[in-house]
């Protein structure tokens, strides 16, 4: 095997336009004066995960905290671009071959030095169907991973893949030492990662205590001695905790608390756009939404601004298709069809599609998701105004997931996010089987074609056009009607400095927080 010298590699890397530790340095440049070291941040949310497995735990409440403990070859920066993290640099040898230079001198929380074998082990674990990781689907383009030398790694893909680099930094991944999770149970309650913080203790669903990783590969950071995450189920108690200075920082699941916490006075309240959407999903194989005209009628009957104002309390962005926080990909509603409410046309479409008279449909919502129930109430009103009756069905989350995964869900409210690339948002959900899951049974060949093309087109500008066409298609024949993108709501004591909200809602921006006073 040819040994690649570091110097040569970096030269090539520079030539292909990739830099080193770019945005991470940029974060730290945000200070005027060097931040104070020390202190433990007390961070409250309404829930904490039951386990902290890096590859198996799919709960969003864990994945948003994972960047503090685990890292990947790349991380997704605030502009949604892959940036070097555990990979110092990489080179795209061809459309299907990438060579990565693993950063030297990185120490795991247990003292072991990171090398390419650890990286290979970690990604292969996610790719292995026997592991049962939900992130397997994002790495399906990798044919094999070869270790070229101690710090060099080669990925061979089965075909050109546009989202490949981004998926390497995906939410189901995390580099762990080679051989550290043979049975799958070793890392459920403890963590061995390379991130700026290590796990000191963990009480499932209740408390997660992190402490500074003194041998973190980036010099000088993190500033905090530790972070204590606590779960406070009742969010009004979180407001009280902020008011009485027991809590430094909070991330509110219920955006309505934004108004309440703003009235406290001595807090910094941050509202940030998020890549998350509240959606009305229709069923492509169930009457009446199996009829494309009915779907369009529903879209025209809805006034999404009103839904945002009432159900979302105005805290977010009315949608289009993709959330505006997906800069570079999201089309503004003004460039999409069927965005303005038009009840008359809706009624005309319904009359044509349902000659028998007034139609009716069932829409599902989930217990414990108040924003969905609230939106549905408004939707029921607006659909009734055009002659479409709605029966509301409230089901438990377990039932909902089972039916959704089995592709037999009726029209339903839905809320999800966590994607940073349109392929991540659309492919699995809307492409027909066997390549995708088409959970809503859209069966749209044109959509398939666009998605397949978008996946293998490497030129960004061409990709943007493809996904623009896809969004137009989605607005024209709405199997899903994205309603609004709810904002992220954070509250911080004024002593908390350096926090930056990330559009995914993940806590990348907590890594370099410091406490004054």
């Amino acid at each position, binding site marked *: 095997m040819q040994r690649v010298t570091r110097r040569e590699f970096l030269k090539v890397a520079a030539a292909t336009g990739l830099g080193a530790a770019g945005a991470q340095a940029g974060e730290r440049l945000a200070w005027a004066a060097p931040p104070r070291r020390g202190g433990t941040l007390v961070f409250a949310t309404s829930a904490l995960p039951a386990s902290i497995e890096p590859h198996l735990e799919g709960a969003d409440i864990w994945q948003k905290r994972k960047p503090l403990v685990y890292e990947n070859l790349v991380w997704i920066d605030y502009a949604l671009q892959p940036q070097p993290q555990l990979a110092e640099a990489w080179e795209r040898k061809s459309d299907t071959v990438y060579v990565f230079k693993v950063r030297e001198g990185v120490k795991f929380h247990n003292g072991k030095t990171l090398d390419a074998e650890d990286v290979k082990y970690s990604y292969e674990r996610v790719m292995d169907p026997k592991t049962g990781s939900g992130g397997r689907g994002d790495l399906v383009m990798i044919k094999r991973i070869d270790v070229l030398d101690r710090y060099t790694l080669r990925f061979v893909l089965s075909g050109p893949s546009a989202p490949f680099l981004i998926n390497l930094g995906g939410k189901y991944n995390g580099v762990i030492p080679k051989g550290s999770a043979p049975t799958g149970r070793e890392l459920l309650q403890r963590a061995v990662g390379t991130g700026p913080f290590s796990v000191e203790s963990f009480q499932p669903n209740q408390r997660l205590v992190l402490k500074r990783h003194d041998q973190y590969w980036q010099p000088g950071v993190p500033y905090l001695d530790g972070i204590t995450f606590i779960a406070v189920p009742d969010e009004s108690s979180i407001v009280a905790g902020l008011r009485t200075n027991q809590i430094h920082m909070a991330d509110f699941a219920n955006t309505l608390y934004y108004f309440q916490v703003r009235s406290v006075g001595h807090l910094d309240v941050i509202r940030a756009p998020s890549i998350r959407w509240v959606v009305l999903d229709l069923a492509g194989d169930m009457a009446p939404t199996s009829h494309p005209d009915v779907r369009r009628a529903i879209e025209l009957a809805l006034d999404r601004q009103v839904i945002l104002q009432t159900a979302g309390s105005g805290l977010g962005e009315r949608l289009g298709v993709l959330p505006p926080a997906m800069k570079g990909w999201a089309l503004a509603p003004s460039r999409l069809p069927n965005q303005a409410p038009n009840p008359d046309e809706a009624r005309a479409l319904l009359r044509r599609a349902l000659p028998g008279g007034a139609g009716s449909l069932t829409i599902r919502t989930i217990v414990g998701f108040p924003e969905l129930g*609230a939106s549905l109430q408004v939707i029921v009103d607006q659909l009734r105004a055009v002659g479409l009756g709605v029966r509301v069905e409230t089901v438990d989350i377990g039932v909902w997931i089972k039916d959704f995964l089995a592709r037999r869900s009726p029209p339903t409210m839905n809320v999800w996010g966590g994607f940073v690339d349109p392929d991540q948002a659309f492919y699995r959900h809307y492409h027909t089987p066997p390549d995708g899951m088409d959970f809503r049974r859209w069966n749209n060949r044109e959509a398939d074609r666009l998605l397949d093309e978008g996946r293998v087109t490497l030129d960004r500008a061409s990709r943007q056009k493809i996904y623009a066409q896809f969004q137009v298609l989605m607005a024209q024949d709405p199997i899903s009607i994205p309603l609004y993108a709810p904002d992220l709501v954070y509250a911080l004591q004024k002593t908390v400095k350096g926090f930056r909200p990330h559009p995914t809602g993940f806590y990348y921006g907590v890594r370099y927080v410091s406490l004054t006073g």
Partner: protein
Amino acid sequence: MAEAALGGVLRRAAPWRALRRSPLFVAGAVLLGVFLLMALAPGLLTHRSPIAVEAAQVFRPPGPAHPFGTDRFGRDVFTRVVYGARVSLGIAGVSVAAALAVGGSLGLLAGYTGSWVDQVTGRLMDLVFAFPPILLALALAAVAGAGSATPTVAIAVVYAPLFFRVVRGSVLAEREQAYVEAARALGASPVSIMTRHIVRNILSPVIVQVAVTLSYAILIESALSYLGVGVQPPTPSWGTTLNEGKEFLELAPWVSIFPGLAIMLCVLSFNFLSDGLRDVLDPRSGLVLR
């Protein structure tokens, strides 16, 4: 013999007049009457809809147009409270009635018949009774899915053993009374003895228990809604409205205060009624009224 039987009935006729004079009972009855009016004829009290969204009227404080203010959807809180009476009282009423029907009839059977019937039903009831009520309610709620039926079934199951015990205990006491012997001697069948004589005479503790249980039912319904497994929005039960208001307690306290008051006053009315009844009907209360 017949005189004894007659006396047993006559002795109980007087209390109804005494009830009317008991201030507690009257107060409770009046309060309950108001709530029953809300439940049965909400349209008389308000012309608005409890679920229609009015974006322009969000979070209005109490005023002439909206005596209890409006909530986050611009809905009139007074209307929500009025319509909520139907849901909350309905759930309480149906669940307690079911608990009484099942537990009470089993208790009547067990108490009068005795022997293996008593043993078996007693064991079954002990089983349910040994199950901490909220856990049973939660599990049942999760099984039955969300919605109004859920707290109803849960409350009925949880309180059936209580009625079983009360009825069984009273029946055991009454069974030894002279008039029962008399009726048996006169050739009456066990069923007719149970239904015609005993039931009439165990009414007082049962009625008291009903009133008390109704108040528990209302509170359990609101607790289940707080935990997210009770009545689902937009249906306006007092419990759900109370819970919804919690999210903006400081901004719009009126959304929570008025349903909370309704729950309190309703439970108060049940308790006044049961206190009044107990004072009059239960000779061991220590008061002079007999």
